[in-house]
């Protein structure tokens, strides 16, 4: 489901960017840092639609960087438990099938597929029912960071 949401972020800017275009530099950095990211709380940040407020900058001791609190509006995409999603199947195998709903990757295990859908191997593997169509309801989700410690 898509949401239009207001988020806040502390942006750090190097003094070399100070000048008449400081705000533009901040916004560019915000877009570069935030768009395309994903968080467990808000989901995928699809696009920033506007900047509401840029607070006063505070100089960080020792580094000279300045931290600006920035409030911005953005479109996010996040699925929820109980949501009905339309998704596009990308791969089918005997373990289940993978699908995509926008930027979200989905896996449906064969254990969670009804009995009346049988896996058909071959050139185009698929799960088939008599009427040939399916949709699913989300019961749970998990977020995994790509950075393993």
């Amino acid at each position, binding site marked *: 489901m898509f949401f239009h949401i207001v988020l806040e972020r502390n942006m750090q800017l190097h003094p070399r960017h100070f000048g008449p275009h400081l705000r533009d530099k901040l916004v560019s950095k915000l877009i570069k840092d935030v768009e395309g990211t994903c968080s467990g709380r808000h989901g995928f940040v699809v696009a920033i639609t506007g900047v509401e407020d840029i607070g006063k900058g505070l100089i960080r001791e020792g580094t000279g960087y300045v931290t600006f609190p920035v409030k911005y509006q953005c479109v996010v995409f996040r699925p929820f438990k109980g949501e009905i999603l339309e998704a596009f199947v990308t791969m089918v195998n005997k373990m289940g099938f993978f699908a995509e709903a926008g930027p979200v990757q*989905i896996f449906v295990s064969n254990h969670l597929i009804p009995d009346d859908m049988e896996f058909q191997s071959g050139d185009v593997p698929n799960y088939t029912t008599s009427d040939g169509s399916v949709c699913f309801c989300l019961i749970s989700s998990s977020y995994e960071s790509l950075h393993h410690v």
Partner: protein
Amino acid sequence: MYGWTLKPVALIQHCLFVGFVEEPTPVHSKSNGKASSGSLKTGGKGSSFSKGEGSKGKAYSGGKGGKGSSSAVVPTKSDADLKLDLDIPPNSRILMNCEATELLQEIHEHMAILSEDPKIKIPESFDKAFKYAKDGNHFTAASSVKQALEPLKKCGVNDGEICMIANIVPETIEEVYALVPSLKANRSLNEGPITEVLAALDNIKAAK
């Protein structure tokens, strides 16, 4: 690589996916991420849940490596369990696919100019989300959809459920109750308005 559009006919009531934290259960670091044991509560890829409505009631006793349940019969999910669990901050607004398409279309036109600069890279998630919103949009104008759905607010249908109806575009009232089971609780109150709304949405649907 295959692409199917999944059309709502039969309801699979359980699935899992790689996405976002819903529950504060730890994700096993050695898991492949595609089967979150925390989300299944019983561990492992296999599930000890039985199938939902429309199934033949086959139950599992634990699947692959999961803790599982030793009993043969596992209780099915009730309508209350399948209720849309929206946990959104107060300063946010739900967007239907039609609204998201219009918003992202403006940004896309702006990005087309920016993308000429080689230093600016458009995120892949934007393209995927934009395509998803466009493909899931069945209407020509978001404002007319919003107007058509307005009566549902008066009969206790929340924003998330309204959004789901707009996104899925059910054809019959029974389909609405099958896909949004939480509405069944107030069926006597909302059945009439929902039927009228479905007829109104049918009139403003874009030809595809």
